[in-house]
């Protein structure tokens, strides 16, 4: 008896509620629903689709009539171009992340010294980020080309022994891509660090100054450790840019000389769309996804963990 009453009461309350209130309650859900559905289909749906593709014998078009198990993955890891791509990714991402962070942090600390003209300097450093990687790539390609770029200019100026032809050398070409990528992203990392530096509580710094700590010690022992979350964010942003690196490579070397500057993303497009090997292309995409997961999941875990 009491049970039924308890059930009826809220039901009555619901019917009595003004339609406007109901709308208010539903509105966020209605607004969010389309984007949620879109993301569900176009992001996660296609991830699943790619996963299926990687186990199928698809060549020119998706083909789910033949299943080949892990064959695509086996062929992938036996392919010399994939091994080259992984090596390049390792070189590129380590140098890119480390050097970008170091330069970004240094620039941020220098800008943080309350210098005059910060308002002018900051956008100058940040500006490369406004360019697309294609523009950066083409510009650096011309700049580094021995026939028309830096080397040529030095020869024109009379320095005939000057030689800088990394972009034409198979063993050095990947480093030219690192240089261009660092030029592009350092300013952005600087902005992140600068925001972090400004977020550090002034009281702590003043307390340290009263205790007689030098500026160097304050940065080394107090400010930088306090910026741990910023380092983590910078790392995640840079790492996923490194794994996805495609446009810069296409614009600068298109994988050359030979296959010296192939990256996993380049491998994926070339195999899927150029070589009619959609199954292998999908397998490489899944491997890339797993690499990104390996970075993002611990990050999310630590972020969510901190909130508790």
């Amino acid at each position, binding site marked *: 008896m009491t049970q039924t009453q308890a059930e009826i009461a809220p039901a009555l309350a619901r019917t009595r509620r003004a339609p406007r209130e109901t709308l208010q309650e539903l509105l966020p859900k209605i607004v969010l629903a389309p984007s949620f559905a879109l993301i569900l289909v176009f992001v996660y749906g296609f991830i699943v689709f790619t996963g299926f593709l990687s186990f199928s014998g698809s060549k020119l078009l998706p083909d789910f009539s033949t299943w080949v198990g892990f064959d695509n993955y086996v062929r992938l890891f036996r392919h010399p171009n994939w091994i080259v791509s992984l090596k390049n990714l390792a070189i590129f991402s380590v140098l890119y992340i480390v050097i970008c962070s170091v330069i970004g942090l240094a620039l941020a600390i220098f800008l943080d010294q309350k210098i005059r003209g910060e308002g002018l300097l900051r956008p100058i450093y940040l500006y490369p980020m406004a360019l697309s990687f294609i523009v950066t790539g083409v510009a650096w390609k011309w700049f580094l080309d021995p026939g028309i770029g830096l080397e040529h200019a030095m020869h024109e100026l009379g320095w005939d022994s000057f030689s800088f032809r990394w972009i034409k050398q198979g063993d050095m070409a990947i480093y030219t891509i690192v240089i261009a990528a660092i030029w592009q992203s350092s300013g952005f990392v600087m902005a992140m660090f600068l925001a972090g530096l400004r977020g550090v509580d002034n009281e702590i710094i003043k307390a340290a100054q009263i205790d007689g700590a030098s500026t160097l010690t304050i940065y080394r022992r107090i400010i930088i450790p306090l910026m741990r979350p910023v380092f983590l964010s910078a790392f995640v942003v840079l790492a996923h840019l490194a794994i996805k690196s495609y446009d810069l490579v296409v614009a600068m070397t298109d994988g*050359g000389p*030979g296959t010296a500057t192939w990256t996993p993303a380049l491998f994926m497009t070339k195999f899927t769309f150029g070589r009619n090997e959609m199954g292998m292309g999908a397998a490489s995409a899944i491997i890339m996804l797993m690499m990104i997961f390996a970075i993002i999941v611990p990050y999310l875990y630590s972020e969510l963990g901190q909130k508790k």
Partner: protein
Amino acid sequence: MLRKLLIGTMLASSLVGYAATSFAAGGSVEVLHWWTSGGEAAALDVLKKKLESQGITWKDMPVAGGGGEQAMTALRARVTAGDPPTAVQALGFDITDWAKQGVVGDLGEVADKEGWDKVIPTALQNFAKYDGKWIAAPVNVHSTNWVWISKKALDAAGGKEPTNWDEFVAMLDKMKANGITPLAHGGQAWQDATLFDAVVLGLGTDFYKAAFIDLDPAALGGDKMVEAFDRMKKLRSYVDDDFSGRDWNLASAMVIQGKAGAQMMGDWAKGEFLKAGQKPGTDFVCIRFPGTQGAVTFNSDMFMMFKVGDDKKAAQLQMASDIESPDFQSSFNVVKGSVPARTDVPDTAFDDCGKKGIKDLAEANSSGKLFGSMAHGYAVPAAIKNAIYDVVTRHFNGDVDSKEAAKELVDAVAAAKG
């Protein structure tokens, strides 16, 4: 006003319906292609004008990017969506691959009427027909085993056109001594492979056939292949150090400007020479790659026809018929630099190199020495072609030695067949 518009539309659509039954004018064709650069676009305009004079609207769908990789990606999307264009520019095994998907049209009606079987070389028919049905209309034949030599540089190097490998090397040596880059070349995988095509063909037509058409592992990994790679290494020594990534037309420009002596490239390179106001015979010389006279490696641009609704079918057949008409074949190929895809077109409008191309093609066709070019997708499917590219380009850039390259070639081809 609205009523007038309605009546007009009804009239127009009934007219189209009428035209469709009469197999002549009306309708429209949508054409996906990658002929966007100057000379190519001008050549395609010949076809466009011809169709427009017959009352067929031309809906242009250009997707730039030489080699058509982007175009094929765009095509995938259209076909998957169930709305393919009327005609698509396509090459070699791509056509066969699409035919296997069961999405291509049938040109039998017009091909039988005009007797394509008799006038188009069999080697081309292998690609333009699938399962006995005509599915594509060949526009032209490019041959790839050409060498373009600057006349001035050749005269300075003795003036004799080389006819075999040793004479070729001797000529390049003299050019080097004269202080120019002997061989203009661009370091892109397909260009490296174009050189490799000619070098392998130079070691014998049987060898070319065994290696690239039959994919015989004994030929792919044998001593002769090691020799082919050694010759590639030799050619590399005549190329300047900045070759990596250079486009083929920039390499042609080096020969035109006299900075380089010769270029090994298909006959599309001729367009660059002509555009620069040079004349065959007096400013530049065209010869077959030394040792390959009599044989031809070809690639052929074709318009692959897709399955379309009945309303578009008439225009599609008309387009195919126009492409194969002898006067179009002549006027198009004079502009494009290639030779006609049918063997009965008179060569009067062509220059000396074009005449030689037509003669060589007919000769190779009748002697059975007309082979599909590996580098341009007419010998093996895309996956195997690219596997060969990988090895050739890595060897050409000095990453592996010749013996290792031959061994890798066998493995790469086997893996890509997989």
